[in-house]
């Protein structure tokens, strides 16, 4: 094997998970390379969390196999648990315990003791910039401090793979940027990172590769640039219109210009291809002729949002609310 070529550290094949009659994960194949930041995108309830729970060994697949660093997850649960770390969307710290106690408990659960444990705890506190607050109750910390504590807590056993389930949800801008830096730094130190997020710009800037999942299936997989290319070779044209005009405008453009028009809440968007500028002026002229007032028109390179709309038919936020309750019900009921 070529040693510059990173090996596949996680291999998922034919993964299916059913809860009763509901199929949460419907035949997923994935190869995650050692040392990469891999993103999983998709509306909640799409099967992201279920996939991650199976990779973490928290739930067993209905069929399919997962191997991590060559170990089958069902046969070597204990070995794999030592290799994996998890930080969930909710900040999980014991508010009634001090920062130090929080870390010590987890370190002990990973069978650390004596000097090793103290060393790991001290390092973690330092890393999270919480050394001077080591004996303060975690409940008294700000959201950002708790989040940092949470991150070092999930890293206390030096896992080679870290799963971050929406790590920046609910953080303010400073803390989000700080979290991104930390994630990049961990990755630079050789940690493979699996990231789910609902911020597509976050996935865009952090992930080496990403997969878009919907209805339990992988809809697309590749680098952010590759995925964007799927939408359009050139720019995407967005035209904002009055609500009542949208349908009419879309039909007019489809009929006269013969291009594919996507409709979202308050605008239409068109993948313009190479002749984007020419297309835009044609459209503006057409709408003027039809006496449809244009509120705004813009041209931009495709974003992951556009990829997402193309693949799942809705924006990521539209899908959030309705599916969230389903997802959590499925998780715990069984």
């Amino acid at each position: 094997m070529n040693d510059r070529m990173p090996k596949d550290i996680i291999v998922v094949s034919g993964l299916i998970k059913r809860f009763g009659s509901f199929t949460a994960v419907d035949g997923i194949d994935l190869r995650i390379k050692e040392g990469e930041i891999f993103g999983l995108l998709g509306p909640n309830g799409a099967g992201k969390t279920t996939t991650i729970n199976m990779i973490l060994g928290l739930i067993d697949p209905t069929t399919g196999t997962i191997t991590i660093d060559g170990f089958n997850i069902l046969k070597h649960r204990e070995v794999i648990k030592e290799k994996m770390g998890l930080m969930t969307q909710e900040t999980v710290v014991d508010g009634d315990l001090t920062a130090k106690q929080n870390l010590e408990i987890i370190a002990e659960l990973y069978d650390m003791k004596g000097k090793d444990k103290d060393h790991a705890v001290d390092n973690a506190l330092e890393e999270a910039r919480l050394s001077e607050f080591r004996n303060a109750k975690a409940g008294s910390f700000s959201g950002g401090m708790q989040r940092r504590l949470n991150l070092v807590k999930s890293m206390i056993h030096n896992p080679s793979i870290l799963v971050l389930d929406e790590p920046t949800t609910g953080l303010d801008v400073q803390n989000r940027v700080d979290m991104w830096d930390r994630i990049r730094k961990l990755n630079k130190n050789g940690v493979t990172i699996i990231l789910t997020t609902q911020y597509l710009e976050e996935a865009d800037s952090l992930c080496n590769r990403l997969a878009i999942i919907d209805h339990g299936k992988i809809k697309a997989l590749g680098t952010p640039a590759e995925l964007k290319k799927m939408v359009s070779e050139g720019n995407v044209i967005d035209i904002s219109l009055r609500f009542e005009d949208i349908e009419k405008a879309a039909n007019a453009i489809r009929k006269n210009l013969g291009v594919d028009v996507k409709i979202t809440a308050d605008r239409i968007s068109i993948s313009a291809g190479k002749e984007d500028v020419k297309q835009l002026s044609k459209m503006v002229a057409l709408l003027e002729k039809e006496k449809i007032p244009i509120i705004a028109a813009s041209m931009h390179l495709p974003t992951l949002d556009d990829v997402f709309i193309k693949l799942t038919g809705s924006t990521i936020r539209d899908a959030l609310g309705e599916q969230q309750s389903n997802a959590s019900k499925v998780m715990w009921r069984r």
Partner: protein
Amino acid sequence: MSNIFTSTLKKAYILYKRDMLIFKSNIRANLVRTILFPLIILIFFSNIGAVAHNVPVGVVDLANNANSYKFMQSLYASEGGLFTVSTIPSISQGMAEVTSGQVSLLLILNPNVGTVSTSTGILAYYSSPDASTVDGILPTISSVAEEYYSGIGSKGIIPLNAKPSAPDTEFVPTLTSGLSTDYEDFLVGGVIALVAVFGTLFGGGFTLITDKQLGNLKALLITPLNRTSVMLGKTIYTLTMSVISTALVIVISLFFGTTILMGFVGVIWIFILVLMLTLGFTGISLIMATRVKKPEIYAIFTQTIALPLWFLSGAFFPAASMPAWMRAISTVNPMTYAVDGIRDVMITGSYPLSTALPQIGILAIFAVIMLGLAIKLFKVQIA
């Protein structure tokens, strides 16, 4: 194999330590919460003079003469809703009815009743759980006796604890009863059981459900951790909580003037009974915690189970005063046996192994079933 065993224990201990650290971090609030409940119950309820209605009184008329007939008529005349009199053909049947709670007070009219010189003309028997009820009607019955048989005097009715020899009958008293009891002493046994059970419901099961809700459980389960450790840790934590709350209730009730007739040995018995009861209810609370999503729902469910069981255990009022169908439930209610045992230790002052072993045995069976189910259901839940 033994490796798995020791590692399970070790992890359980770490989880237990975590729960205890959380408990300790709010120790004042937690202790006050534990004290408040029994304190309020004792303050408000111990001063209730147990007002009795239609207390069943059985009379065995061994004399069967004119005097006893007149006494009976007098007794019927003074019932007044306070008690109801029935006649019972034999002493053995009478004693059986006292024991089973069908009658609260048994009067035995000796053949020599009404003859001037005897002091044991009428014997009164009751079992200790009914003591407070009987206290309410004894004065009336005494006065009937005195009024009618002026020669007998106040010694005519002797409480059972005096252990009279009954020369005129074949009967040898087998029931033992403590010193005169009042409702407070009666209540303490029930309060100990109640506080232990409520402490249990808000112990391990409750922390498990909050751990689940806040995501802590997931964070713990991704560490190399046997799931049985989680159950074990929560169980040990719950036992600790019930030991602490029992100790507090005992101290409080001693302040209220309650006595534990069996002394220090009695305290040990109480702890054994409470721990056995706690184990079973820990199982129930853990099953609930694995089935239910929200703490509020958990609290409603568990209280719906615990409160009726408490009422039907004879903790608040004697089982004798319940209708038959309720008494039937109380015999299959594990809490009944804990309350009975604690009360024997505190009020009766004797807890022979022949009583202790069956009672503790029933609690142990209850515990094994509930904890077994809890471990099984927990595996199904998340594994």
